[in-house]
């Protein structure tokens, strides 16, 4: 908050992203009244959730990855590894850019706007399911970032692994049924972007059963487990800067 210019600009950018997403959707719906079976207002939910997750990733995950890559490149990773706390936690969750969390507000505003325009207010059961799916989505995102960060141990000169995340994440702008089959499968079961934006939106809209939340939790747990194993494997084989 000290850097007021920075705060104002981040706020402005968050609003701009919201407007931009709405603007693009308006041009689409100028020509047809549905996108793969989703209406304009339903699409707002997906777009809003996309903004929410991009805020979370930008605020919590991105700063950590840059720092971690710097540590590895400069050889100071050793100092992180010898600390008496879990190295994965230290490497991936200690830095934070809280300003980007404004995106959560912008994104949820779009979600609420969409629901209001539809005149649909989800049931308690649907909200409960949604409120579990979102953290599950955050965990899945975290696991994927851990995977990418771990790759930095081997590919030391590459500092843009996060771009791989953003590439897959971009696909989350639209509901997953927009994509044709091999891609749709990839985005649901391999890099589960569908669980981030499409399924939570569909749950709120009553398009799918709230029991999808079970799938979300299962996928999140598998993802976290796999990525933690991969991190431990990498640290074991890490030939540090000095030894």
């Amino acid at each position, binding site marked *: 908050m000290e*850097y007021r*210019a*920075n705060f104002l*600009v*981040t706020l*402005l*950018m968050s609003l*701009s*992203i919201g407007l*931009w997403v709405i*603007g*693009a959707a308006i*041009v*689409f719906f*100028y*020509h*047809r009244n549905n*996108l*793969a079976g989703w209406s304009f207002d339903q699409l707002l939910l997906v777009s809003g959730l996309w903004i929410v997750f991009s805020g979370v990733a930008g605020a919590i995950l991105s700063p950590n990855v840059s720092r971690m890559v710097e540590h590895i490149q400069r050889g100071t990773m050793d100092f992180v590894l010898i600390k008496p706390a879990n190295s994965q936690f230290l490497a991936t969750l200690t830095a934070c850019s809280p300003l980007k969390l404004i995106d959560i507000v912008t994104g949820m505003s779009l979600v609420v706007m969409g629901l209001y325009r539809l005149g649909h207010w989800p049931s308690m059961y649907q909200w409960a399911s949604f409120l579990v799916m979102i953290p599950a989505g955050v965990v899945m995102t975290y696991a994927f970032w851990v995977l990418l960060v771990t790759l930095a141990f081997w*590919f030391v*000169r*590459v*500092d*843009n*692994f996060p*771009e*791989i995340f*953003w*590439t897959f994440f*971009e*696909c989350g*702008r*639209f509901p997953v*049924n*927009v*994509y*044709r089959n091999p*891609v749709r499968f990839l985005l649901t079961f391999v890099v589960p972007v569908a669980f981030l934006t499409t399924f939570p939106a569909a749950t709120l809209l009553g398009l799918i059963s709230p029991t999808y939340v079970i799938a979300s939790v299962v996928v999140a747990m598998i993802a976290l487990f796999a990525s933690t194993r991969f991190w431990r494997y990498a640290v074991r084989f890490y030939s540090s800067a000095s030894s």
Partner: protein
Amino acid sequence: MNTLRKCASELRTAWRLTIEYRIAVFIWIFAMVLPFIMLSAWLAIAESGPVGRFGRNEFIAYYIAVLIVRNMTGVFIIWEQDYDIRQGQLSFKLLKPMNPVVHYLALSLGSKPVRMVLLTPLVIGISLYFPAVKFAFDPVSLLLFGLAMIGNWLILFFIQYITGLLAFWITQSLNVNEMWFMVFSLFSGYLIPLELFPAGLRDVLYASPFRYMLSFSAEVFTGQLTRIEILQGLAIEWFWVGVFYVTYRFVWWRGLRRFSAVGA
């Protein structure tokens, strides 16, 4: 001759950087997925019938053209430029016997050969696999396409360079660039073909420099324009190159005075 040698040496350095950081460069190219995502969305819409003149094949042609143009004309130098100005590294570049802009121009061109090598088989592959997808492959068209892309690249370069030069005055030039990208992506034809905008807005955009930041080159490559229209477009495009070049010179002159004043 001396100038040419300086430019050549900057280009060689930029090329070597590309080779050295080849995995990173490859990731950058792979990361340009937005055209494919937009294409998927439009194809889903076009299943119930064409949108304007755009059927399945026209959308595929358009977004492949967009991919090529964006790869070949994209400029990504502002991060290094911002760092150089705000951390004072610009002083080292100023000591060299040439304008620092040459370094950034060369940097921007470094990965273009690699991109061309990766994209050419893709375009040829798409043309063979989807015979109804049409590109303007004849030599004259390709030459005009090349000229269009060079002008396109220069416009984008000067706009980004000027944005980077704002670092002489403000700390937020990278964020300004982010916001600019949103405006650019919506109005240049990157996200959505300009033809598909509502009529009034469409005419404004066609008359604006935005068209020449991506759409015009894509229109040339997909064979949408007659020779006359291409030549007219090129004239307007290079007019805008001139405008942005002059603006850059002015901002550079003012910025440099300020840089010296801060005692670097």
